[in-house]
């Protein structure tokens, strides 16, 4: 029983981070209909940039913040330079471009920081407290709390602010919404920038646990996509739910069934969701569903 609770708790902490990746991914998808395959790599990039700031001598919290902001800026730059020329082309083309961006980011990280694993200092200690036979580390609590706060802020942003309404409008119909005075280019840029910020936050939170390697980006991406699909493509609360569920399921699989095949759960789950209920758990977005 204690093992079960332990698994659930560590799953919840990891799940909060996957939820952030899925949130950024879903926000970009919701606004621009583009699948950003570089989301995980952006997260790891954020962690690397933060590490550089730490090495310069900034105190850890400031370095992490600077890294996150830089990730947002980099993502906005990428959108401006690489993706904006492609909006008039068929949708497969920007998606292909994000594949290229993902490959480029991974190799940039390898060139600049090397391919040996590095260590990013965590925000809280990892010596666990023992509560009723279950070990919870302060780090896990901080990760979970930070992710919840960020998620809530994002949901409020999309729901109530002008920018959020503009994003939802652009998702529905980009041409019509520009008649209402919304600058669609700026909205796309904003969605990518916020997606980048979310990726940076996720990377900075999870990297102390999983290690800092350029190849971690792809793993994070896949977890993020599975979470988004499970929760429902286009649904922000769904992304959060999906992230936590995926992490818990993967952890359960790791502990009770087989450690090496544990990540396979994400693939199988994505397949099952797409086969049985394309909308996922909370999705109401019909954009990705074929209506034929």
């Amino acid at each position, binding site marked *: 029983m204690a093992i079960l609770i332990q698994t659930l708790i560590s799953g919840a902490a990891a799940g909060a981070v996957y939820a952030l990746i899925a949130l950024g991914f879903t926000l970009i998808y919701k606004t621009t209909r583009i699948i950003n395959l570089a989301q995980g790599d952006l997260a790891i990039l954020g962690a690397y940039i933060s590490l550089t700031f730490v090495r310069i001598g900034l105190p850890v919290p400031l370095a992490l913040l600077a890294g996150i902001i830089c990730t947002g800026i980099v993502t906005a730059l990428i959108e401006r330079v690489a993706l904006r020329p492609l909006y008039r082309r068929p949708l497969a083309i920007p998606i292909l471009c994000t594949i290229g961006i993902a490959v480029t980011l991974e190799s940039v990280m390898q060139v600049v920081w090397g391919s040996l694993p590095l260590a990013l200092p965590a925000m809280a200690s990892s010596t666990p407290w023992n509560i009723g036979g279950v070990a919870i580390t302060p780090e896990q609590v901080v990760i979970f709390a930070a992710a919840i706060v960020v998620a809530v802020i994002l949901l409020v942003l999309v729901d109530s602010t002008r920018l959020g309404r503009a994003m939802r409008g652009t998702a529905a119909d980009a041409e019509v919404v520009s008649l209402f005075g919304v600058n669609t280019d700026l909205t796309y840029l904003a969605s990518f920038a916020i997606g980048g910020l979310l990726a940076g936050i996720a990377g900075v939170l999870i990297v102390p646990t999983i290690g800092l390697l350029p190849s971690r980006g792809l793993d994070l991406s896949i977890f993020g996509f599975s979470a988004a699909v499970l929760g429902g493509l286009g649904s922000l609360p769904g992304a959060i739910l999906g992230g936590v569920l995926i992490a818990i399921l993967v952890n359960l699989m790791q502990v009770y069934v087989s450690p090496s095949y544990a990540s396979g759960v994400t*693939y199988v789950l994505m397949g099952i969701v797409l086969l049985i209920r394309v909308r996922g758990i909370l999705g109401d977005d019909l954009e990705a569903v074929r209506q034929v």
Partner: protein
Amino acid sequence: MSFLTPSRRFAAFVAGAALLVVVVQLTLAGPDLLIVDEACVYAIAALGLNVIFGMTGLLSVAQAALMGIGGYTLTLMVARHVGMLPALALACVAAAAVSALTGVIGGRIRSHYFILISLALAEGIILVLVNDMQLTGGTNGVALAASPTVFGLALGTPDGFAYVAVPLVFAIWYLTDCLRASRFGIALLAISTDEYLAAVAGIATNRYRVLATVVGGAYAGFAGGLLTIADSYIGPQNFGLDTGILLLLIVVLAGAGSNAGTVVAALILTYLAHGLLTLTVVGELIYGLAIVILIIVAPDGLAGLGRLARRGARTAWLRLTARGQPA
């Protein structure tokens, strides 16, 4: 295309294949020949991806993983004393079946988002290939139990393989051209252009989508089997996402679902990939940047260039024979 009647076209393919076999054997040796062999294998797999993506519009990074399925099936069958040709056929069937699975699962999802399920499939296959020690030997791979010979040519050697591979590429290229001109190909074109209108016109869109993945998967299985025969060995390293992205890039470089472009692009990109790999990390960076720049700058890829060249040639021909002149 009034100059190339169907029979002339077939003759052109046969002549081209014969010519290229001779040229390859006479001019290339050693490592260059290895690159050509690999380019042939990737050309076949890329032609399959062209059916899936270029003709139907289903974005897929799983083609390399499907090659792996074909290769491992071949290896396992040969180890159980199945003949080489039946084993190759089984490799095609296995890869086609797995590919059909993605087609069925992705049946409810729009074509561009198909990449999600193909990503899941590709990573899932690699996960199994790498971890399953008994069946697949894990990361060590498995050696092929028997090395086939055709008319006395040892297929396990680079030049023996080239004798068979180059004509095979031409044959499959011709086959794919016929496929595109057939009812199947026209249906795929209709589906990728506008699904609603295709359905209204009476095309069974769901069925054709799945069929496209089946056909593409069969190509991949064949290519994977050929690669295993060429190397006399199979390991999971060749079938990961890197190769999957390379294949996708070949089809994008080819442009507009063109088969000729796919074959040429396969040769170019295989050669470049080998060159870039020797530069290691910086090479990867250039590769990634090249993908992005290519997609932004060259929308129609090689096919677009080819079209421009053909138009220029025809204009020059007309001017030369004074047919374009007014009376």
